[in-house]
C-alpha cells in the first residue's frame, strides 16, 4: 500500500519529464541541443502563475475540459499497477472503468473545444473523437487476450502476468498486443504519425488545435494531463514488456522508471524518423492496430 502510493507519487512527478525525454531525443536525432529535459516543469510553473483569458462565447464546459483532462489520467493511474506494486484501486472489471474515464475526458475536452465556436477547435474535436473511436477496440481486444492469459479480471492481475510463464506460453500474442497498444499510445497521445505536436499550422493538428483558446492555468492543466496520459499509456506497455520483479520495491520502481524513459525515447525516435500520416491514412493504421490485437485474441483462444 505504502509502496503503491509512493509509486503513484513518483509517476505523478515524473510524467512531465517524459515529455522532455521525447523532445530531447528528437533534438539529438536532428543534431540540435534541444530544450532542457525539465522544460515541461518550467512551462507548467509559468502557466499556473499566468492569468486566464476566456472567450466570451464560452460556458463552464470550457473549463470542464481541462479539469477532466487531468482527472481522467489520474483515475486511470489509480487503476494501474505501477512499478510492480498492485494498483491502489483494483476491482473486478476495472479495465472497463479505465476505458470509461478516458471516454469521459474525451467528451468534455471535445465539448470544451466546440464551446469556443472557433472552426479550428471544431476541426480538432472532430478529428479527436473520430480517431479515438477507432483506437478503442484495439485496447479492449488486448485486454481480452490478457484476461485469457492471466485468468484475471483486473488490470493489476492481467498486466502483472506471472511473467516468464506467460511470455513462454504466448509470446506471439503479447508481441502483437504490444505492437497494437504502441499504435494506440501514439494515437491517444497525439504523437506522430497521427498528429504533430510541433507544427504551428492549426489545419494539420488534432490535440494542439483543440486547446488553442485555453490559456494560463487551464492550459497548464491540459499540458500536465497530456503528460500524465502519456505516462499511463506507457505504463501499459512497460508493465507488459518488463515482467521481471526483483522483490525490492525501490529496484522495481527504478526499472519501471527506466522503462518509461525507454518508451519515451522510442516515441521520440518514431517522431524523428517519419512524417505525420495524411489524415485519410490514419483510420487505416488504427484499424491495423485493432486487427493486431484481435489476432492476439484468436491466438490465445486457439
Amino acid at each position: 500500500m505504502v509502496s503503491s502510493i509512493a509509486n503513484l507519487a513518483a509517476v505523478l512527478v515524473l510524467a512531465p519529464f517524459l515529455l522532455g525525454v521525447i523532445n530531447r531525443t528528437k533534438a539529438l536525432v536532428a543534431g540540435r541541443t534541444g530544450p532542457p529535459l525539465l522544460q515541461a516543469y518550467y512551462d507548467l510553473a509559468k502557466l499556473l502563475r499566468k492569468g486566464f483569458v476566456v472567450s466570451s462565447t464560452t460556458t463552464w464546459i470550457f473549463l470542464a475540459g481541462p479539469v477532466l483532462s487531468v482527472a481522467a489520467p489520474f483515475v486511470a493511474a489509480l487503476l494501474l499497477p505501477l512499478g510492480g506494486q498492485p494498483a491502489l484501486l483494483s476491482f473486478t472489471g476495472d479495465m472497463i472503468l479505465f476505458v470509461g474515464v478516458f471516454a469521459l475526458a474525451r467528451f468534455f475536452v471535445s465539448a470544451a473545444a466546440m464551446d469556443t465556436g472557433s472552426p479550428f477547435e471544431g476541426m480538432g474535436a472532430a478529428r479527436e473523437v473520430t480517431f479515438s473511436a477507432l483506437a478503442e477496440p484495439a485496447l479492449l481486444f488486448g485486454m481480452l487476450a490478457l484476461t485469457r492469459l492471466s485468468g484475471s479480471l483486473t488490470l493489476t492481475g492481467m498486466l502483472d502476468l506471472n511473467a516468464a510463464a506467460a511470455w513462454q506460453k504466448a509470446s506471439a500474442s503479447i508481441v502483437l498486443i504490444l505492437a497494437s497498444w504502441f499504435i494506440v499510445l501514439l494515437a491517444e497521445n497525439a504523437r506522430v504519425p497521427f498528429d504533430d505536436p510541433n507544427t504551428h499550422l492549426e489545419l494539420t493538428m488534432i490535440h494542439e488545435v483543440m486547446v488553442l483558446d485555453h490559456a494560463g492555468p487551464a492550459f497548464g492543466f491540459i499540458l500536465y494531463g497530456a503528460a500524465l496520459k502519456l505516462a499511463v499509456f506507457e505504463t501499459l506497455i512497460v508493465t507488459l514488456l518488463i515482467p521481471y520483479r526483483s522483490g525490492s520495491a525501490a529496484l522495481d520502481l527504478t526499472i519501471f522508471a527506466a522503462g518509461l524513459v525507454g518508451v519515451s525515447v522510442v516515441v521520440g525516435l518514431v517522431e524523428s524518423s517519419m512524417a505525420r500520416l495524411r489524415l485519410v491514412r490514419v483510420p487505416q493504421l488504427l484499424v491495423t492496430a485493432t486487427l493486431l490485437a484481435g489476432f492476439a485474441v484468436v491466438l490465445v483462444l486457439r
Partner: protein
Amino acid sequence: MTSLQVLALASGLVAFSGFPGLLLKAGSTAAQRIATVLHVLGCAIGTGAAVWALTGGTVTARFAWALPGGSITFSLDRLSAFFLVPVFVVSGLGSIYGEGYWAESRHPGNGRKLRVFYGVATGSLALVIAAGDAWAFLAGWEIVSLAAFFLVTTDQNDVQALRAGWIYLVSAHVGTLVLFAMFTLLRDATGGWLLVPSAVLGSSALLSPILVLALAGFGLKAGVIPLHVWLPDAHAAAPSHVSALLSGVVLKVGIYGLVRVLTMLPAYPTWLGLALVALGISSGVMGVALALAQHDLKRLLAYHSIENIGIILIGLGVGVLGVAQGRLDWAILGFAGALLHVWNHAAFKALLFYAAGAVIHATGTREIDAMGGLFRRMRFTGTAFLVGAAAICGLPPLNGFVSEWLIALGSFRALTSDGGGVRVLGAAASAPALAFIGALAVACFVKAFSVVFLGSPRTARAATGADASGSMRVAMGGLALACIMIGLAPAVAARLSRDAAVVLLAGGAGTSGNADLGVLGLVPLFLLAVLAAFGVAAFAWTRPALRTTTWDCGYAAGSPRVQYSASSFAQMLVGLFRWAVFPDEHRPHMDGPFPAAEQRFESHAPDPVLDRFLLPAFSRGRSILGLARAIQAGRIQAYILYIVVTLLILLAWSASW
C-alpha cells in the same frame, strides 16, 4: 388484494385518463388538467404495483373468454414487473411534460386526441407486459400499435407526420402478422397458449422457425436493423413526449416479447446467441453511424434508439451464449446488463427527447445547424441534455456505464472459460464492439450537444429562445435524477435486474457470479468525488482575468457561420461508413480562380433501407401490386364477405379431417 389487481386498477385509470376531456370543450385547460391528474395518479399506482411485484412472487389470474383459447390469462412475475416500471415512470413524467409542451391552449385541435391515445397506449402497454397467454399479448400488442399510430399522427395536417404514421402502421402490422404465425407454431409445439416454460419446446422441430419468427416480429417493433424502417420518421414526427414514450417504452415491448419467449425455452441453441450478438453489433454500429449523419435533432436521437436496442441484444446474446456454454456466471452478467439497459435507455432517451422538445419549442426547428449557443439561455434544458448525453454514451459515473459495464464484464468473464469455441468467441466480440459503439456515441453526442448548446447562435431565432417551463422541468429533472441515482448506486439496480433476469437462466437459478453485480459498489461515488475535487480546485485556481472574443486569426469579422456544423463535425466518420450510410452529398461546383458566388455544400442521410430500397421497390412494383386492388376496393361489405367465405372454407376443411 394482489399486485395484479392493483396493476389492473392503475392501467384502467391510465387508459381512461383522456376520455373525460372529450366531454369538455376543445381548448379547455380543465380537460388537460383532469387528464394529467388521472394519468399521473394511475402511473403512480402502477409504479407502486410494479415495485411490489418486483420484490414479490408470481401472481396469475385467469378469466373465461368466449374467443379461441377458452380463457384469457394475466400473469405478473419479476420479469414483467421490471419492464412495467419504465412504462409507468416515463409515461407519467411525459404526461406532466405534456402540460407545458403540448398545452391545450395552443393545440385546441388535437390536444384531446393526443391525451386519449397517450393514455390508451400506456394502459395497453401494461396489458401486453402482464399478459399470461398469447391472446392477451396479441390483443394488447394490437391496441398499442393502433394507439401509437394516432399518437404519431397527432398533428393530422402535417404531411410528414402522416407519412411516418402510415409507414409505422404498415410495419407494425407486418410485425403482428409474423407474431400470429409465431404464436401459432408455439401452440403447436407446446400444446397451449400459455406463456410458460415448456420442456417439450427444446426438442421440437418447430423451435428454429419459432425463434426466427420471434426475432423478426419482435425485431420489427424493437427497431433492429434492417427492420427499423418505421422508427426514425415516427420518432421525428411525433410530439416529443410521444417520441420519448415510443423510444423509451414501446421499443422495449419488442425486447420484452423476445425475452418472454426465451423464458419458455428449456435450453438455448448456440446459433441463437450468435445471432443475437451479430444482430446487436450490427444494429449498434449502424444505428450510431446513421445517427452521426443526421442533422435533425430528433432523427439523430431516433437512430440512437436503434444503437441502444443493439446494446440490449448484445447483452442478451452474451447471456444466451453463457447458458449454452453452461457458464451461468457470465450468462447472468449479460442478461442483467441487458435488462438494466432497458431501464437506463428508457431514462436517458426519454430525458434527451424531453430536452430536445424544449429546444424545438424554443427555436421552432429540429435542424441542429440552425441552433447554437443555447446553453446561455437554456441552462436547465442544457444541463438535462448534457446528463442524458453523457449517460447514453456509457460514461461513468452515470447509469449507461453500469449496464454496459455488466455486459462487457460478461464478455470478459467468457474468456476465463476453459476451452474456446464459437460461444466464447461470440461473447468475446461483445466487449470491443461495446467500446466501439460507445466511442462513436461520444462522437455523436459531442456533436449534438455542442452544435445545439455551445458556441454562438447560428440563427436569429436561436439567439432568443427561452428555457423550458416548470412542468417540462419537472419531467426532465425526474429522469436526470434517475440517471444519476442508478449511476451512483449501481449495486441496487444491478440486484433488481438480476432478480428479474434469473428466469432467463433456463432453469438453472445460478448464484455464481452474483458477487460481480455488487463490485461496482462505491466506485462511481469515489469517481464523482475525485472529479468534484479536481473541479473545485480548478475553478478556484482559474479566475478569468480577461474576457474577450474567441481567437479568430485577427480576422475581425468572424461570423457564427464559420463554426463547425453538425455535418462537418461528423464528416470524417460518415465518410468511414459511406459503404453503409450512403449519404447524399451536393458538392459545390468550383471552376476557375473566381468560382461563381452562392455555392452550397449539402449532405443528407436518408434511411438506407427505407428510402434507398423499400420505397423504390414498392413504387416500381406498383403496377403488379395494382392487380390486387380489384379485391381491395375499400368496400366493407366485400371484406366481410371475404371473411365469411374464408371461414366457410376453413370449416369445410376441418370437417373433412
